[in-house]
């Protein structure tokens, strides 16, 4: 591990890599936005936390996200991932993630890091002050996965500093569960997630949390269609981190982050999101930058079914 000596790269080349990644993902989503009919969802802007608002039934949301991170003792990295989120019913959604990662410098710099398959269920059929959602995910990833979609146990920035050539050989099969509690009040959404993750390779349960708060900049809609108006922007913040393991449930040795978020939800179904994140202790990555775009395809299930008629 300590023999790993990354090549020094200029800030310009890092920016070029970020730009390339974004440019590669942009056409996928933008092409869809032109050829497929869209729908606007009631979305919260979070990258890590989940709210109780699920994808509308029959709709498919295609999301392309990336995270850029800095770390001590290792080179910076960028981890793009794709999400395909489908509303099976009004109370059940299913989602497939495809994760990749690029580390600046070193060998095996760009790697495919695995897939994740997630389901979310609303157990209560009515809206309440606090709305629970159950989340179950199966992860088939490698040790090189750096999407940081959740922080659990004693995950620290030092785990991510190992070279891809070594950690991409480690295959991890994990089950992740979440209890999502979420409320809407006077335009605000407040979401709390309690996370339990189990590596199926006989490791103890690891725990974590994520909390998110968000609100549109304007609560009323204007009569005319508009793109750059306040009603289309949602701002918020999220905080997340680890809570130790079943053997040592504590904050000791854990990492924590806080991240403001802004999201621009266009009426044509395209949403752009940006979130700079800041580590709150020495175990955390000092800086994380998440960004992405999503597009909602209306009536996807109906169209697929029609193909088989």
């Amino acid at each position, binding site marked *: 591990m300590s023999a790993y000596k990354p090549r020094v790269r200029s800030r310009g080349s890092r920016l070029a890599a970020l730009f390339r990644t974004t440019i590669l993902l942009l056409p996928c989503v933008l092409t869809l936005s032109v050829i497929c009919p869209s*729908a606007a969802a*009631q979305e919260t802007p979070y990258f890590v936390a989940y709210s109780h608002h699920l994808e509308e039934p029959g709709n498919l949301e295609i999301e392309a996200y990336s995270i850029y991170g800095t770390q001590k003792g290792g080179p910076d990295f960028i981890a793009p991932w794709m999400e395909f989120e*489908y509303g099976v019913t009004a109370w059940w959604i*299913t989602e497939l993630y495809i994760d990749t990662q690029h580390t600046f410098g070193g060998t095996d710099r760009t790697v495919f890091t695995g897939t994740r398959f997630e389901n979310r269920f609303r157990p209560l059929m*009515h809206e309440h002050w606090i709305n629970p959602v159950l989340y179950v995910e199966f992860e088939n990833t490698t040790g090189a996965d750096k999407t940081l979609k959740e922080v659990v146990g004693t995950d620290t920035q030092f785990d991510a500093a190992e070279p891809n050539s070594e950690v991409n050989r480690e295959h991890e099969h994990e089950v992740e569960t979440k209890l999502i509690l979420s409320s809407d009040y006077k*335009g605000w959404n407040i979401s709390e997630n309690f996370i339990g993750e189990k590596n199926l390779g006989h490791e103890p349960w690891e725990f974590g949390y994520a909390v998110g708060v968000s609100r*549109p900049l304007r*609560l009323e*809609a204007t009569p005319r*269609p508009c793109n750059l108006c306040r009603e289309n922007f949602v701002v918020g913040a999220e905080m997340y981190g680890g809570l130790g393991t079943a053997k040592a449930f504590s904050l000791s040795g854990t990492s924590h982050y806080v991240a403001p978020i802004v999201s621009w939800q266009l009426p044509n179904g395209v949403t752009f999101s940006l979130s700079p994140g800041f580590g709150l202790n020495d175990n955390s990555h000092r800086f994380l930058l998440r960004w992405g775009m999503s597009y909602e395809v209306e009536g996807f299930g109906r169209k697929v079914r029609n193909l088989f008629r």
Partner: protein
Amino acid sequence: MRPALLALVLCFASLAVAAGADHDRDLDSRGVFQVIAKAPAKWRALKNPYEGQPDAIAAGEKLFRQHCAECHGDDALGRGRAANLHIGGVQNATPGELAWFLRSGNLPHGMPPWAGIPEQRRWQIIAYIKSLPLNISPRT
């Protein structure tokens, strides 16, 4: 890795096909009206602060096209089994009943809760729905 990924994708696609069928079956107008009738008394009595305001109706129409037209159609005449919003069951409901229904949804019958949309926008949508003419027949 590849067979596992293929299995996941196939699983995803078959769910989508199955859900396409469920989507149409579940949007049952009768179920919608039964649920509207269950609105609590305190909701039933609520007044729409935007009632009859032309700007609010225009904003409501814009929001309707963004969020609701996908199932109910651009003309609100219903699509598949999604309710025709011109008929008496909707037009005779009080604004408060519609506000409660829009917020709560009807999850077993495929209508998502729209609590994620700010309350002001939900009232604007209701102002638009209430401005629709009564008793237009659904498309054949």
